[in-house]
């Protein structure tokens, strides 16, 4: 354990009601020296333990008994905006993912993902990246179209962000975008994160909580 202190270790909180999968994933994450994972079956328990555990990344199952993953995300993000929340889902095409993203989640993780992928995703999100699928991209576009109609002066996406979003919505993967736009994948991720952020800004909850962010953050 002592030897592992050399590497930066960040805390992951897993909120998953499926006990076997929770145990498996906890085991997997903890098997990586970079992660320290605590897990909870219920959002209520997790929220109680939040102050104590102070996780950097939370992997949250969308379908939770009691407080749902989306609600939980909203709560956590309102209290601890700095915590990156990654939604965990069985299927990529889950309509709830977009709702979760709107609630403040930064990305999502497929349960079937390969082990390396899981690690990469966690690191990715910790480092500020965000995954986005065509379905999500489409919803984001629709969301911004309707919002720009409602609030013309509202913050709108930049040209590059629009470009990326359009590509995504046409079915391209994030990995394919750097080849098209001649930018690094990290830049793409940043743009996507910004898109998410702009998406969240439009939620009143977030605007309301900006002060809290300033007070409680860092």
């Amino acid at each position, binding site marked *: 354990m002592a030897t592992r202190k050399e590497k930066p270790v960040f805390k992951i909180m897993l909120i998953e009601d499926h006990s*076997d999968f929770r145990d498996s994933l906890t085991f997997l994450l903890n098997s990586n020296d970079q992660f320290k994972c605590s897990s909870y079956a219920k959002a209520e328990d997790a929220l109680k333990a939040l102050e104590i555990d102070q996780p950097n990344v939370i992997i949250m199952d969308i379908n939770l008994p009691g407080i749902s993953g989306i609600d939980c995300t909203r709560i956590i993000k309102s209290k601890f905006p700095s915590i990156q929340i990654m939604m965990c889902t069985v299927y990529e095409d889950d309509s709830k993912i977009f709702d979760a993203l709107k609630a403040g989640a930064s990305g999502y993780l497929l349960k079937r993902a390969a082990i390396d992928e899981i690690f990469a995703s966690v690191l990715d999100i910790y480092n500020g990246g965000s995954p986005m699928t065509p379905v999500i991209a489409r919803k984001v576009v629709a969301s911004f179209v309707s919002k720009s109609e409602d609030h013309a002066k509202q913050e709108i996406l930049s040209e590059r962000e629009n470009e990326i979003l359009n590509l995504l919505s046409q079915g391209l993967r994030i990995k394919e975008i750097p080849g098209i736009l001649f930018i690094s994948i990290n830049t793409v991720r940043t743009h996507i994160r910004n898109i998410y952020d702009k998406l969240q800004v439009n939620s009143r909850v977030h605007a309301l909580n900006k002060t809290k962010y300033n007070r409680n953050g860092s």
Partner: protein
Amino acid sequence: MEKSKINIVLFFILLFTSLFRITIVNGQAPVYKNYTVNDGLPSQVVYCALQDKEGYMWFGTDAGASRFDGKHFQNFTIKDGLSDNEILKINQDSKGRIWFFTLNGKLSYYFMHKIYNSQNDSQLSKIRARFEFMSFMEDSKGNIWFGGYGRQLLLIENGGGVKNFYFDSLEINYRRAWIYTYEFDSNEIWIFTPKHTFKYSYDTISVLDTSNFLNPFYVNFNLQNLRPSDAYYFCKSGICNLKGGKPIKLFSDRKVVPYDHLKRIYIDNMNGLWLFTSNSKLYYLNKLYGNYQKDSIDFLGTYIGDIYVDDEGNKWFCSTGKGIFRELPYGKKIHNLDENKIFEKNEEILCTARDNLGRVWVGSASGGLFCLDKDSIYKIQIENINGTIQKIIGITFDKSNNIWGATTLGVFVLKNIGDKQYSSQKRISLEYGNGLFGDNFTAKNLKFDNNMNLYVSTNNGVTKLVTKFGRTCLSFVDPKEIPPSRNYCLYFDSRNNLWFENFEHLFCYNNKKLTTYSYLDSEFRCEITDIESSFDSILIISTYGNGIKFLKNGKIINSLNSANGLAADLCRRLFVDSNTVYVATNEGFSYFTYQNNNVSDLKTISSADGILSNDIKDICARGDDIYLATSSGLCVIDKKISQIVATPPRVYFTSVSTGDSSFFDYNNRKISYKSDFKINFIALAFDQPDKVTYQYSVGSDGYNWIETKNNSIDFSLLSPGSYTFRLRAKKFNSDWSEPISFNFSVTPPFYQEWWFRILIIFALASVTFYFLRLAANRKYQKQLLILQQNQLLIDERTRISSDMHDDLGADLSNLLLLTRLGSRSTNLPEEEKMQFHKLEEYATDVIDKVDEIVWSLNPSNDSINRLISFIGIYSNDVFQLSAIKGSVLLPEKIPNDQISAAVRRNVFLVVKEALNNAVRHSGATNIILEVQLNLRDLKIIIRDNGHGFDVNADELKGNGLFNMKKRIQELNGQFQVESKSGEGCTVYFSLTV
């Protein structure tokens, strides 16, 4: 010689006896129609008559009043409100009230179908009558003066006031004194009493000296007011007209009219003056001061109490005991000589003929031979033969005006000895042949030919007057020339042809030559009764059953029968006077003009017109007089009778009845469609009321006259609607009257009323609405059920997909994770690691399949957006797993429109199949998936650059293209594959989602 002496003596004896029998009488004999209780009169004691302004005749009897409309007597008694049943006098005032003067002195009057008396009329209740009233006068102010016996005068003022005057200053002897009133001028009324004349002026009564002209009898005085200031009266000095207060003496010859006995005078509407005397005699003075016309009219000793002449000219004689007698009106000349000083009662007349002097002779069944000269009648009685009466069947005259007669007992001749005198009858014998003579045979007819040879028809053939064996006798015409058969009629035409018939055929005989017209038998079909010829030599033949035939040159050129208007088809005799043909039949007679074979002006007269009998034996005419020999007597009728045009009758609706109730206020009445409807009416005609014809029309507009003889019309089941009933009438000799009309409406049954129809419409609408709503509700319920079922399905799909997603997905994910963890384990042998890898692949595959199932199950994915996204994700995954460079082109804007699960699933499966085909079998290096969307038209193109294949080859079926095509066609879409060997393949399909 002795015989001839005796004959001469006999002749003179007979001549004297015949001369004694000749009597001269006045030719005018009135005809009366008698009405008795049998006709409906309440009593035969009739006191008075009046025609009211409407035209009805009123009669006062000792058993009530009676109103007569020409057909029916409507009787009124005290039960109907009369104050007394003894009605002595009837008067009508200008208001239309009909006043009844009764024996008990109480007044009552009739007005508008009701009788008023002291019980129901306040004016009448103020009257205190001592005795009966006898005079009536309405002055020019409309006040009515009633003079009464018992010294009383009653004044009913126009305004309604009632005044009683009592002249008690008259002595007690005058208790039954008469009182008459006379209007001198509008402000002065004279009151005549037996003792004084009074003057009533401005409510005061003063004595007036009229002794200079008015010298009344004590008991008998009578005054009749004709109009204001114009009255007629009689007094000791004569019959006077009092005009403007000044008397004009009209008549004072007591020798002619014993007016000492005068009781009453009556001036009729034709200025005829009728005088009633106390000795029951009635006198008539024409034109008031003209000639004395009539002696006492004797109604078999019955006293005539009153006379009234109505506007038709009928004279109504009211007798006390024999009812009412009506004399036919002036101008209508029918003299029925059925009972006279010359004619026996109902003497049967058999023949009539005109002699060369224009006199008319008739022969009767009782052997009477009558000559009707211009204004006298002679009678010669033909002697009986051995006590048997000779019925005179035919008469003819020779040039010397000797009378030749055919009777049932032979032939006689009366020699004209001048000055209307004739010898006694000489009988002509018949020679049967071989010198055998007989006097007694039946002669049927006798005619002179143009050479004045006499021919007589007998039962045994035609005979001719000849001289044989030194004596004048009848002898049969040679039987070889004329068949010896029964023979009735004879006629010589202008060419001296003898026409006759023998019950079989018509014959023409001349110069020993006989022509038989047997071919005409079918035309005559019956016995020929008479033959005459028109002035243009057309034979006119009357038949006994088939009317009249006109014969020319052996052909029937015309015919006339009852269908054409002839009185009857049984014709008896003809008489031709220049171009007028007279026909005697068994149902009256007809006469017409016959010219150029054209029948015109046909007129038929029957007993309905007043002639004695319809049974006419013979006919002849002289000037305008037509002489009818009937079985009931001789009838002389003016030819102009049918030309007299009377004024149209007055027509009234008498009552209208529906069902049991009848009413007089019939106008605008509503009648139920169910009830029978009867309209009673009358046209007032007293002369021949049976010949009144009515025409009515029922309709809302237009006149469609229907003719009837009845006095009522029954309607039943008239269709609902408004009607106008119009009626007019005509007498037999008048034009149509002006139509009278009234309106009525037939109410429809309730189911035809407007409110019921509205109700029905409303009810229908309600029912329709109800059923429509019911249907709509059911449809809605059905839809709701489908929706509920759909929702249940959706719910179920959601549950299943959710379960699979959450539980199965999580389990499988865990399985996969554990497998991967297992395979990462470094201390495992390589073989087991391979097993783990296989397990991992397997698990990944299962997860993918579950993923697809969940996707297709989840109802929230039922949108185009979701479908295209999923296709995009799926194809990206497919391309990523394979080494092929694939690109996905999606439309920029995809709406979130709902699509059905079937479309979504099938479209995805086709894309999946096509992609797999391209990836696995085509050997392509580049695959392009393109999705195009135009509104709801979806088009998907999958293009590869592989080695391609022959589309038409059989292998098509093997690589699933068939299934793909089938799936798209099930969705009504179009599926196409374009491929050639070595040139890649393009699969594209389009459908409306």
